[in-house]
């Protein structure tokens, strides 16, 4: 077999938060296996991620995930070209498990180690839909992040806007909690939203401001004030209408800001990624908005790859591999890792 015909195989690790995941990815775009052990059920009891529980769970799961991933892909360590791992952002104790496991495999089998930014991974979930064309813009929305990332070329990421306070997914979890919905609340609130109407007209923060930043704290407060006031006068509000009103405000802000960003940054693709990218209201709205845009088309991360998983880490790791981005055994978890801001953006 000539070298050009040999397939590239990367063993990828992800453990930044709730999910322990290991995947085997061929040539950066074919998933041979993607094992995800979630611990959301155990966290639901606590209304959120508990770091200590998370770390312990990752330790229990990670070696089982490696075995399952290799078995399902029908490959052995000797077939691999590299090991990749999320080293940030995330919970430090959770990240460390993946980083340590990946370093160990890399050392034991003499394989290069590729450090991957979790957010680059989220964006590259879209690689399983179609190749990414540059320049591209990504709207990343998850429990911990809400940001617009401009990608002028491969392996280049620049933040042009982000949330000033709460992440969109976090706002979902918090208003969900007010309505008695378990963590993670996004799916239920999304479902209710589709059954209700935007009757409360919550504020749309920063929709008109001259920047690409988001804010969801005012919306959260308005929501809490509304339900609090109703409680005091003994009135019961429709959870469907509350959800619809909340979701409409979130989607309006995300969609408007993205539209402004696209005007300043003409791109081939708009990539929608991150856990909240699974939100139907948001997917439908962006689809509608982009129908009239002749130059940019929407690439939505596949629903089952919107949440945290190692397949997306492997997809970006292939790009990093080709660019020669490797780490040695000193690689450490970086819980606050983030992309740089675009040089020309005013922060």
């Amino acid at each position: 077999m000539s070298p050009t015909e040999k397939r590239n195989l990367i063993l990828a690790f992800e453990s930044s938060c709730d999910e322990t995941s290991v995947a085997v990815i061929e040539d950066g775009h074919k998933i041979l296996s993607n094992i995800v052990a979630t611990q959301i059920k155990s966290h639901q009891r606590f209304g959120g991620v508990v770091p200590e529980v998370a770390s312990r769970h990752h330790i229990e799961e990670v070696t089982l995930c490696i075995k399952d991933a290799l078995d399902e892909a029908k490959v052995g360590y000797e077939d691999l070209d590299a090991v990749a791992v999320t080293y940030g952002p995330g919970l430090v104790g959770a990240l460390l498990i993946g980083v340590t496991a990946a370093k160990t495999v890399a050392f034991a089998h003499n394989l290069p180690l590729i450090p991957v930014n979790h957010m680059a991974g989220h964006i590259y979930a879209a690689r399983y839909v179609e190749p990414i064309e540059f320049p591209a813009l990504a709207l990343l929305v998850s429990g911990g992040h809400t940001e617009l990332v401009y990608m002028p070329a491969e392996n280049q990421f620049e933040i042009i806007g982000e949330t000033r306070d709460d992440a969109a997914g976090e706002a979902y979890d918090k208003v969900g909690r007010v309505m008695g919905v378990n963590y993670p609340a996004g799916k239920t609130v999304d479902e209710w939203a589709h059954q209700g109407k935007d009757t409360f007209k919550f504020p749309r923060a920063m929709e008109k401001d001259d920047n690409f930043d988001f804010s969801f704290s005012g919306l959260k407060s308005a929501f809490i004030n509304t339900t609090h006031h109703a409680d005091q006068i003994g009135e019961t509000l429709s959870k469907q209408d509350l959800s619809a009103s909340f979701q409409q405000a979130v989607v309006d802000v995300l969609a408007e800001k993205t539209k402004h960003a696209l005007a300043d940054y003409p791109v081939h693709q708009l990539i929608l990624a991150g856990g909240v990218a699974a939100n139907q209201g948001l997917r439908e709205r962006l689809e509608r908005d982009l129908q009239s845009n002749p130059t940019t088309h929407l690439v939505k991360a596949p629903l089952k790859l919107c949440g945290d998983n190692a397949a997306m880490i492997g997809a970006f790791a292939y790009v990093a591999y080709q660019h020669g981005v490797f780490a040695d055994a000193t690689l450490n978890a970086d819980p606050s890792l983030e992309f740089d801001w675009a040089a020309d953006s005013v922060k």
Partner: protein
Amino acid sequence: MYEVTVTSPEATMALGQQLAPDLQPRDVILLDGDLGAGKTTFTKGLAAGLGITRNVKSPTFTIIREYQGGRIPLYHMDVYRLEEGGGDELGLDEYFNGDGVNVVEWSKFIADELPEDYLRIVFKRDDEAGESQRTLRFEPRGSHFEKLVKQLEDGTNE
């Protein structure tokens, strides 16, 4: 103890900013109050007062956010998710005995990990008086924080 009533998020931020110049490494400030009471808003002001230019975001998801680049570092923690315990394994001691100011939201969940001296600020909503009205009650423990609150009290009464 010192109580002050504010009527806007900007005023909450200004209080945080006023407190900042007198803060030292290893100071621990506890912010207690309901969701949406203004804890993160206060921290934004405090960060600005320390000369931190980076935007202060909610730390709920990552538990701890670190901010360098100011006069001294700021460690912003939200232990809301630790209501079932686990705070003892977070290594909070290293932060509390470290090189920066520590701001802790929902501190009742890590009561066992707290140092002896700290400044607790309790945020209370007053819905009768208006949706953005908040009362901030400063409860210092130890002479350093008593002095600090006294200064704040004198400063705002001028």
